[in-house]
């Protein structure tokens, strides 16, 4: 096997490479950081997010495990309580369901019970549009959203992928880091060579506008952008607010944007009912009601599992047309 080189810090960087840079750089500066998961070593990760890391850091810090998500998250939690900073990889984020108990009963409650903080990062590829079917396309953020003690981040740009992963690794609490696999090799941007983080809990305005806000995150920020381009032709100016952090989320940024635009769509890729967008909408109804000129519309996936066939999956997922339809409804409200 040819040795895969250490990534160059910064420069023209894909979303996937941004993740690899973040892990690599954090492991170089902090001996407490290690990576544990299935096929992360020999194979370099199912998507090659840890390519070259076994050769560079050795099997003591790049740990290939049996197919055991409970043991991966459990061992990471025990190590975290003992002073380490583990990164636990779920080969696909769908499999985090197997480790649900370790996260919702052990890691999340530990600090509150006086058992000490559990600074772990559990990360893995999420999301559809890649014809992965019901077990390789999920967006699990809502499963964990109702679990105090956890943090959840969901970057949508390469800059944020790197900065949020570094922030998650340095965070004192358990962070679920969700990376959309559709973005891995499809987006690229020029990253700074120097060390930086993106603070957890802060949203980013991706596009400034005055008529309508699309509150979104993850790969949906690109759908929102298509919507904005389309509506701009009709003279409608759309603001795109990329939440980036799901838990905690930037309530202030949402309210500020709505105060300006008075209309709002919440766009997310998970199923509609009980999705985190439902909480965003509820929070706005509670705290920004006076600013609103129309009902808050949610655009999300169907309340079904993620289907495999392209026709089915395309019907299932939110897209530009669905979002535009919702936008036009509230614009004429």
């Amino acid at each position, binding site marked *: 096997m040819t040795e895969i080189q250490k990534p160059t810090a910064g420069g023209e960087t894909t979303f996937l490479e941004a993740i690899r840079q973040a892990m690599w750089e954090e492991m170089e500066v902090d001996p407490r950081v290690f990576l544990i998961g299935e096929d992360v070593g020999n194979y370099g990760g199912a998507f090659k997010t840890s390519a070259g890391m076994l050769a560079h850091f050795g099997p003591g810090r790049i740990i290939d495990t049996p197919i055991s998500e409970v043991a991966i998250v*459990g061992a990471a939690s025990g190590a975290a309580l*003992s002073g380490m900073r583990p990164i636990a990889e779920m080969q696909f984020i769908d499999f985090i369901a197997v480790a649900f108990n370790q996260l919702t009963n052990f890691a999340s409650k530990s600090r509150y*019970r006086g058992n000490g903080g559990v600074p772990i990062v559990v990360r893995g590829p999420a999301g559809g549009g890649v014809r992965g079917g019901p077990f390789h396309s999920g967006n699990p953020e809502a499963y964990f959203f109702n679990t105090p003690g956890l943090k959840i981040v969901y970057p949508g740009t390469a800059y944020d992928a790197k900065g949020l992963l570094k922030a998650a690794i340095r965070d004192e609490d358990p962070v679920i880091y969700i990376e959309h696999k559709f973005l891995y090799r499809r987006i690229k941007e020029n990253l700074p060579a120097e060390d930086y983080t993106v603070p957890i809990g802060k949203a980013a305005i991706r596009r400034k506008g005055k008529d309508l806000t699309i509150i979104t995150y993850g790969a949906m920020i690109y759908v929102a952008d298509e919507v904005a381009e389309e509506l701009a032709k009709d003279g409608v100016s759309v603001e795109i607010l990329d939440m980036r952090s799901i838990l905690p989320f930037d309530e202030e940024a949402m309210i500020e944007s709505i105060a300006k635009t008075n209309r709002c769509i919440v766009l997310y890729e998970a199923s509609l009912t009980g999705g985190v967008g439902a909480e965003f909408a509820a929070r706005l109804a509670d705290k920004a009601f006076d600013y609103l000129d129309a009902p808050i519309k949610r655009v999300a996936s169907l309340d079904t599992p993620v289907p495999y066939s392209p026709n089915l999956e395309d019907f299932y997922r939110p897209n530009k047309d669905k979002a535009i339809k919702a936008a036009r409804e509230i614009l004429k409200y």
Partner: protein
Amino acid sequence: MSEQVQSPVDLGVSREGLLDMYYYLRLARSLEEQLVALFRQTKVIGGIYRCLGQEGESVGTAFALDFGRGDVLSPLIRNMGAILRAGAKPVEIFRQYMSKGNGPSRGRDLNIHFQDLNGRGFMGPISPLGDMVSVMAGVVLARRMQKKEGVAMVYIGDGASSTGAFYEGMNFATVQKLPLVVIIENNGWAYSTPTYKQTAAKTLADKAYAFGCASETVDGNDTIACYHAAKRAVDRARAGEGVTLLEVVTFRMKGHAEHDDQSYVPPEMIEEWRSRDPVERFERDVLASGLVTAEDFKSILERIKAELSAARDEAEASPMPLGEEAQYGVYYGDGFWDRPAATEK
């Protein structure tokens, strides 16, 4: 010779060690009796999950650890003897049971669900069973990366040995050759479910074959045998030989918790196990060794009585937490665990 003179039995434990074991056996039992009394006075708020009959294996196995060398344990609900041995204080346990604001979890969690992992060396377990196997595997995995010594011991029950978490943790720890000793307390019952409905394995130690780790089954009511078996396991772990699954066969003398009258347990079974009480057996065996006397026992009992009385008074006089304290300490950064607990006056 017309008269058989019984020669002293060599128990393989020093006089000092035997007296220490006796102290913890009796401390666990007496502390529990006081908790039951407090429960009946409604001063213990939640349930009591009795250790009665399981003090021997709890104390015996915990004695195999060397907390000064970085060893740690994760108890189950019936291992009060084990965490006392690890250094938990009776006043902490009283306060925890009574949900006091200055208890180890400040009224947030119950019973022996509290920890001092990086100090005295015990971890607070959680109620979903089996999870602590991989958590404790992670603790010793960290020690290996940190180039520190230390063996971890984790207690689970016959019921927990049916969980997926148990299998995943055992398998991972064995593959990684981690210094982990997993004690299965086979006490006959998981709530109301007898062990034969829990598994078709002949012994719970047989499950070790699936993992490829060492295993042993020992009489859980023989404190000293438990100590020696656990010591063998700890020595193997320290020597780099990896995981041991140690099954201690014992009996839960009370229901799952105080509310449970265990009517599903045949009374003759309880009677039979009563005659095998681990504390009484320890007294008999140890007196036969000739190393200690009934007088030694008596002075230990007096010491425990005084200590528990003081601890109980202190805990009873302790304040309850302020309700508004519930909102803090979920995440890092609000300083909750760094400032003194706010309590009722």
